[in-house]
């Protein structure tokens, strides 16, 4: 069998196929990564099956989100008005840079350089940590998984399970280097306790906390933040200033809609009936400042696309990643974007088509993602549509384009098709080495199909009357 050689097309790291190829060099590790995430998918299935009304819930959530997108302007105004009435300061950021500037200004005004942050994919999208670090602000990510990747200098590889790609021995080593735990200790209980003690110090000494937002309620001007660890709450309730960063699409109309979304979110994400904490921040604590930064960063533009607006329904549960057979076998970092997996693949090309042109092709279009999505985003349909857009914009290689044009000619002309079919078979039969070699990616780990003596149409002509 041919050895798996890596096949890096460009030097850097913006090609899913090349990155996935590297990932697959360690097959036992791929098996471990795949099985771990499949287990999460199974937990999701178990939790979902306990609600006979599960599919109705998905449909309801989907329709609520459709309503939100169709009325987003008014909901945003309603949310802002109600939040302001609650004593919350509302900011608007057109893009990532503005978001970072606003957050930085608030931090500066608070006069602090040491802050804590709970999980927020939006802040990942805006590269907030890097921005703040370069301006002398120490940001401590308090979600355990995010803390681990932060210590390691990496980006999270999954939006809900940030360090799913790390083994406990590796975490043990990391903690031993950074937190002073004994070398060789990889017991999750022990390591978590060490992290608890270390992060408790940060909670106690930080005067400003940044959180993400799972849901922003237009009707009441409140925000909901869900965690299992309690890190968002610990950060905020000990701080003088709370900054909540939220994409404009995270609005939902009414408080009681949370009954639908909170029933779907944790079950879809991890198979739990609910996260340990589902905190509703309606007003700041007496004496505390609370800020909400509403971020556009391409969302208002995406809203205008009939084909691609559905991505704005996403509630960031990660179910699509857990079910994706490609994600499980290539890992989040192969997607070179803040958000990986199927949802990342339909988000990223809209942000930077050239950089992320490969992502919609990192899929077999199996459709599993669309069917676990709690808000029924048509992910696999969007993957197909993105491929058309990407090709139209010229972001596919010359050879591929040429091959496709040849294919189109062959398939449009029955005679050419018959002749080339015959030629192809003959080539494969009598000169297999032309095709069966290391330049043929199929042949790397698979045998080519055996060549039959005649095609079906050849057989048909011989064995049946022509039926034209």
């Amino acid at each position, binding site marked *: 069998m041919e050895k798996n050689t890596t*096949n890096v097309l460009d030097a850097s790291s913006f090609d899913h*196929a090349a990155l996935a190829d590297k*990932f*697959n060099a360690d097959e036992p590790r*791929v098996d471990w990564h795949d099985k771990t995430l*499949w287990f999460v998918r199974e937990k999701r299935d178990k939790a979902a*099956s306990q*609600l006979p009304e*599960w599919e109705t819930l998905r449909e309801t959530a989907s329709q609520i989100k459709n309503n939100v997108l169709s009325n987003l302007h008014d909901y945003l105004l309603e949310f802002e008005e109600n939040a302001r009435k609650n004593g919350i300061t509302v900011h608007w950021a057109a893009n990532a840079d503005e978001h970072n500037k606003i957050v930085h200004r608030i931090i500066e005004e608070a006069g602090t350089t040491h802050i804590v942050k709970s999980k927020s994919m939006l802040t990942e999208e805006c590269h907030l940590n890097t921005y703040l670090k370069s301006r002398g602000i120490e940001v401590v990510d308090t979600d355990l998984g995010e803390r681990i990747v932060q210590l390691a200098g990496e980006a999270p590889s999954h939006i809900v399970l940030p360090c799913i790609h790390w083994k406990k021995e590796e975490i043990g080593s990391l903690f031993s280097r950074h937190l002073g735990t004994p070398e060789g200790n990889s017991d999750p209980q022990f390591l978590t306790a060490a992290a608890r003690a270390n992060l408790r110090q940060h909670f106690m000494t930080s005067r400003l906390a940044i959180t993400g937002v799972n849901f922003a309620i237009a009707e009441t001007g409140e925000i909901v933040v869900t965690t299992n660890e309690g890190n968002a709450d610990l950060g905020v309730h000990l701080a003088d200033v709370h900054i909540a960063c939220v994409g404009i699409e995270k609005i939902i109309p009414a408080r009681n809609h949370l009954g639908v979304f909170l029933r779907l979110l944790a079950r879809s994400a991890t198979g739990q009936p609910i996260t340990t904490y589902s905190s509703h921040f309606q007003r700041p604590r007496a004496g505390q400042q609370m800020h909400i930064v509403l971020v556009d960063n391409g969302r208002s533009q995406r809203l205008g696309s009939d084909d691609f607006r559905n991505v704005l329904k996403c509630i960031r549960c990660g179910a699509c990643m857990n*079910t994706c*057979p*490609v994600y499980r*076998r290539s890992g989040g970092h192969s997607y070179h974007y803040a958000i990986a997996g199927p949802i990342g693949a339909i988000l990223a090309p809209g942000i930077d088509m050239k950089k992320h042109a490969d992502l919609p*092709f*990192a*899929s*077999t279009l*199996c*459709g*599993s993602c669309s*069917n*676990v999505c709690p808000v029924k985003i048509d992910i696999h349909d969007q993957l*197909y549509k993105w*491929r*058309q*857009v*990407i*090709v*139209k914009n010229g972001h*596919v290689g010359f050879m591929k*384009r040429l091959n*496709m044009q040849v294919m*189109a000619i062959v*398939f*449009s*002309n*029955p005679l050419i*098709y018959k002749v080339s*079919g015959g030629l*192809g*078979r003959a080539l494969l039969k009598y000169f297999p080495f032309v095709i069966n070699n290391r330049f043929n*990616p*199929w042949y*790397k*780990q*698979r*045998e080519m*199909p055996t*060549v*039959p003596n*005649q*095609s*079906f*149409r050849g*057989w*048909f*002509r011989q064995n*049946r009357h022509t*039926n*034209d």
Partner: protein
Amino acid sequence: MKVALFVPCYIDQLYPRVAIATLELLEKLGLEVAFPQNQTCCGQPMANSGFEHLTRTTNTLFIKNFSGYDYVVSPSGSCVLHIKEHLSLYQNNEAAAKIRAGVLELTEFLTDVLSVEKISSRFDYKVGLHQSCHGQRGLKLSQMSELVASDFSKPRHLLNMVEGLELITLDRNDECCGFGGTFCVAEEAVSVKMGKDRIADHINHNADYITGNDMSCLMHLEGILRRQDSKTKVIHIAEILNAGR
């Protein structure tokens, strides 16, 4: 009823036995089946690669070949799904719509149109059923594990009519095999890994044969099986149903 046989390009060229089995099976069930001889390809390989705009001529050819039939039947879930979702002709949408309404994959044609309850076939082997994604999730040939909904399976329903056949259970009932069209070479590492994992599931449950509705999936799995020198073989469901006694 007027039935036309739509033979996917790679079956025509590389696995004619699948089309032969399909034709013979339909004829055994009393149908007269036409084979429009100028058919080529449904256009899916180009469309799925982002070159949908190059499929206008293949669409025209398809409509030309397959107009005027009550049903167009094919032993391929993914090709049928592609036609169902993407066949359109800018000048003659009515013709395209008619074909889209009447195009069916083989097993759904047998269960839904012919309402087959008995198949005269014997296949004394342990068989693993691979649920090809496009047929399953696209054409709803069987229930998918993602949904909380009642179980059903058209291919399984038919296989249960075959004497001597023992259907094995799998750990993962409907995970993708990794073929995915040009994906199989563009993302070779992941594609093969997915195929290997599917195969391991079937072999762990002692499958003599792996069957399914799509020869493309089976071709990919067969390539890996043969590279592994495995005793397990692949066989299209049409061939099992047509195996005779």
